[in-house]
């Protein structure tokens, strides 16, 4: 079950936050901003921490065909805790989508793949309802009602 969605612009600033269910604590606007900035930084550091043994041998995991190839080859992809899991999808333009869900059951890698599919659908909605809105300024906070509604619909349909 999906708890909330965050969208970060290229510099790591929070441009969209939507709580879709209320399983988790409500954070203030400030705390959301801090969370976004932290994830942006941790994303890059996780890439730097790749063990040397992996760099030598890495077999890329087979990716699902026909959807946006994930440019995220070594940055942070997922976080597992007792109460929630968080999945991160980064586009080629540097925009990050964070999905907070219930904790993963079973195979962590397949949970990650499912989340990635949802995030790709959300990326398509972003490209449609945010990018094509002529009054939306790039990198600015997203205040588009249509986008909110479409996201809520997508999540309900899952």
């Amino acid at each position, binding site marked *: 079950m999906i708890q909330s969605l965050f969208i970060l612009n290229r510099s790591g600033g929070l441009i969209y936050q939507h709580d879709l269910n209320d399983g988790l604590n409500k954070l203030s606007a400030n705390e959301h901003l801090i969370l976004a900035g*932290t994830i942006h930084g*941790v994303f890059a550091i996780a890439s730097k921490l790749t063990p040397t043994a992996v760099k030598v041998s890495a077999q890329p995991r087979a990716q699902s065909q026909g959807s946006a190839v994930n440019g995220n*080859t070594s940055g942070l992809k997922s976080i*597992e805790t007792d109460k929630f899991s968080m999945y991160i999808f980064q586009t080629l333009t540097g925009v990050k989508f964070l999905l907070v869900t219930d904790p993963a059951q079973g195979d962590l890698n397949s949970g990650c793949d499912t989340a990635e599919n949802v995030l790709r659908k959300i990326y398509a909605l972003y490209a449609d309802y945010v990018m094509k809105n002529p009054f939306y300024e790039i990198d600015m906070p997203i205040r588009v009602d249509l986008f909110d509604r479409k996201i809520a619909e997508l999540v309900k349909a899952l």
Partner: protein
Amino acid sequence: MTIFSFWIFDRHCNCIYSREWTQVLNPATESSGTINAKANEDNAKLLFGVLFSLRNIARKVGDTPEQENTLNSFATAKYRAHFYESPSGLRLCILSDLETQNLQTQLRDVYSNIYVEHIVKNPLSPVDFKPGSKITNQRFIRLVDRYLGPQ
């Protein structure tokens, strides 16, 4: 299941032990790698920063009055990091490949059976480490290698 490295951070946020296994690909050779290497100091600090930040996020978002939320692991497309924090503030972290799903039991084992037995209960080994000093207890190192190292 391939384990790349193992790190311990004390409650003063210092890295007190770091072990890296580099011969993971070639099982015929003796396992080698680095123990407490100086070059890993920067990586240790970065790793601690990541673990600390993510643990705080886990607490902020997931804590309930009944139970505290704990960070279990995080993953990139190349590796997974498993985390365990003891109530005394000791933090253990293992970097492994993506196939490994859950090393919580192993982390708890290392803590209770190896660290507590041989460091805490050993009157001659320090428990409160000064910044910069590391665990050099040979028995500890050997047992960790045997438990976590390539079989």
